[in-house]
């Protein structure tokens, strides 16, 4: 078995260089190591200036998404052994501005997430002391998979529409809007529909399904987008045929 493996890492230090370059590092190979372990080896023992985000190392905090050999991956769940004999190329996620090395700028997503109102909207506001809203396991199952999004940005990196049109709300934000639309406790679907209908980009999504394909948590954003488009089309027909029915 190989004793070392070559990692080619995209370096970009805006105070030093005008554009990204690749730097190669030899790191020990272990079958238990993930790509993130190799990056930490480099940072701890070879080059302390290499910069990347990470935290939980168990695939749930969503910090360590990067491009590994051309594909967007959570590096804490991507094993070196999968890429033997190497080299392995690690780059920042695509479709985002790069801040430095492997760190991307994601404030655009935070703004989009907030714009779709990802919280329970209700006309009434019963006091919690009166008890829980009832929700059967079947009702929970209606939205559960959309609630599993860890905001890792891997779907945005894979999305051809977002790559071309940064105005597009994007897979995760739409999936999270749908997570609340489908929640039996929520009454905010119309408000979210109004927000999303301002985003032309959604009609550019041609059900390529790249987002669903790459999601490390098995969320189906492509499904959410199709559900939204169907609902929006119905809405449009309704307002066209029965203009008085629009709330």
């Amino acid at each position, binding site marked *: 078995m190989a004793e070392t493996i070559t990692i080619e890492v995209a370096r970009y230090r805006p105070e030093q260089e005008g554009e990204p370059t690749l730097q190669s590092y030899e790191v020990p190979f272990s079958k238990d190591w993930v790509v993130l372990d190799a990056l930490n080896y480099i940072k701890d023992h070879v080059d302390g200036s290499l910069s990347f*985000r990470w935290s939980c190392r168990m695939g749930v905090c969503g910090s360590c998404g990067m491009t590994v050999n051309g594909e967007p991956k959570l590096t804490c769940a991507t094993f070196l052994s999968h890429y033997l004999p190497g080299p392995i190329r690690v780059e920042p996620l695509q479709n985002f501005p790069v*801040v430095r090395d492997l760190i991307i700028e994601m404030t655009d997503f935070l703004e989009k997430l907030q714009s779709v109102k990802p919280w329970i909207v209700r006309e009434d506001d019963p006091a919690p002391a009166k008890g829980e809203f009832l929700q059967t396991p079947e*009702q*929970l199952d209606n939205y559960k998979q959309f609630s599993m999004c860890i905001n890792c940005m891997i779907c945005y990196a894979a999305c051809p529409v977002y790559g071309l049109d940064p105005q597009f709300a994007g897979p995760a934000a739409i999936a999270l809007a749908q997570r609340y639309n489908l929640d039996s406790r929520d009454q905010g679907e119309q408000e979210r529909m109004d927000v999303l209908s301002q985003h032309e980009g959604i009609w550019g999504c041609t059900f390529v399904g790249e987002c669903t394909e790459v999601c490390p948590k098995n969320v189906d954003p492509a499904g959410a987008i199709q559900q939204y488009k169907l609902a929006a089309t119905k809405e449009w027909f309704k307002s066209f045929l029965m203009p008085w029915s629009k709330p």
Partner: protein
Amino acid sequence: MIDNSSSEMPSHDVLLVGGGGAGLRAAIAVSEVDPNLSVAVVSKVYPMRSHTVSAEGGAAAVIKEGDSLEEHAYDTISGGDWMCDQDAVELFVNEAPGEMLQLEHWGCPWSREPDGRVAVRPFGGMKKERTWFAADKTGFHMLHALFQTSLKYRSITRYDEWFVTRLLVEDGRVQGVVAIELMTGRIQAITAKSVIICTGGCGKVFPFTTNANIKNGDGMALAYRAGVPLKDMEFVQYHPTGLPFTGILITEASRAEGGFLINKDGYRYLQDYDLGTPQPKPVLRSMELGPRDRLSQAFMKELDKGRTLEGPYGPYVHLDLTHLGKKIIDTKLPFVRELCLKYENIDPVSQLIPVRPVVHYMMGGVHTDIQGATPLAGLFAAGEVACVSINGANRLGSNSLTELLVFGARAGRAAAEYALQNKPVSAGIEAQAADEKKRLEREFLHKRSGTEPIAVLRGEMQSTMEKSAGIYRTGALLEEAQADIAELKERFRQVAIQDHSHTFNTELMAALELSYMLDVAEAVVECALQRTESRGAHQRTDFPRRDDERFLAHSLVSHRTGDRPEVEYLPVTITRWPPGERVYGRPAAKTPPG
């Protein structure tokens, strides 16, 4: 780019350091006291990256018929080996159901009964089923529900990826922080009328931990340096079931659903340690559903007897879920299966899971009262970083997520009330902030002469802590550790920094985190050395008995510049439950009051 025009200091009413479960709950609480109060959430990571996200098993609150607040209180107090403040525990169990229902109204996807009511599961050390859960990703769902709900409050301003380096204290009260904006390297003072620390724990002080990379005791050290005592720091919880190498947590819920712990002979060894007799189905407060301290101690005794297995990453035992079947595992423990498949290449449906005890939680933390107030005016703390104390000498699983809500909300309300007193920012604050900026530049950013690599110092600290402040401790080893930590602190003055850039300097952050951890390590060792008894998670082989005569008291450790820290003791508050024997797996000699 460092902003040299430090004239404009952003100013808020209430400032939170940390944006995890406690911080977000506190931020919302402030907004609900008065929507005109401006709230700043300053966090070194985006809030949804906070470590609350990794919590798996559940959150405890009495909700079902046949359960009672008294029983939840008694389980918590006996689980904590009578070190909990009973007034704090009483209000905690009292307010827990309301907070959990509030989170349900905010959209947390709690697992449900067929009739639509919230479902509960058993948990270690709990006599009744009262642990609410969202499959086995409870912390993840709680954090995202809180974060997404917080987005609707316009009064909350987030400082995402800002790293706090110091509390600003003047005229005897806290008035803000100095922080580095990671994206630009700008060093900035942010003032506030009150500050709440919600930065979580410090598992990374140890080498083998379930804690995320960001858990460096930041808030504990910030308070400690500002003269606030840390309480009960010797009580470090080892969770009995972590995956070897990665330290990934395999939730206690896997035992609550019926998993067995077995040694190398396939024997359910807990029966040898006064934890009850093995039954095919889980029995509450018995065997695998005993408290975490006792289970982790039992592992060490099995190791002594040569009855553990040996792997490339040290000794381990097995967690057996195979008899539960695929359906239970997939509905109740899907994340456990995912983690085992992904990180150990093991399918718990048909294979045994290798596990060993792993550092998980700090019972101790910043000394607060039941409102979350610290002895420093204007400074509050909540969550794992704080010690109220409801966890005593050993926290029960599923109490900490609820604690975030109950005491996050309390600290938020108290900090809001304090801010409404509207005291002005002192004149000296700006100069203090300028001094802090100079310190960071002199000691780190501009320094090129350092020789001690961060990773080496960190590694030595972690192995010192494991050797001396682990599951079993002795005075001799703790004295060695005291000298070792002091030496590491001295060597840290020569820390080597290769990265001198301003843009997202993670090496600078790692150095500052290491300095926080060294302070926390010093506090843990000092308290462990001074407590010459064994209680809960603090086990001294040279003092094997609990000593209520001398130590039914919280330790309060204070920083002393250039000297050893000072430890004082504060009596435990006892209301209705006099200290008794901790009994698991058999009837208690005397029925507890209730």
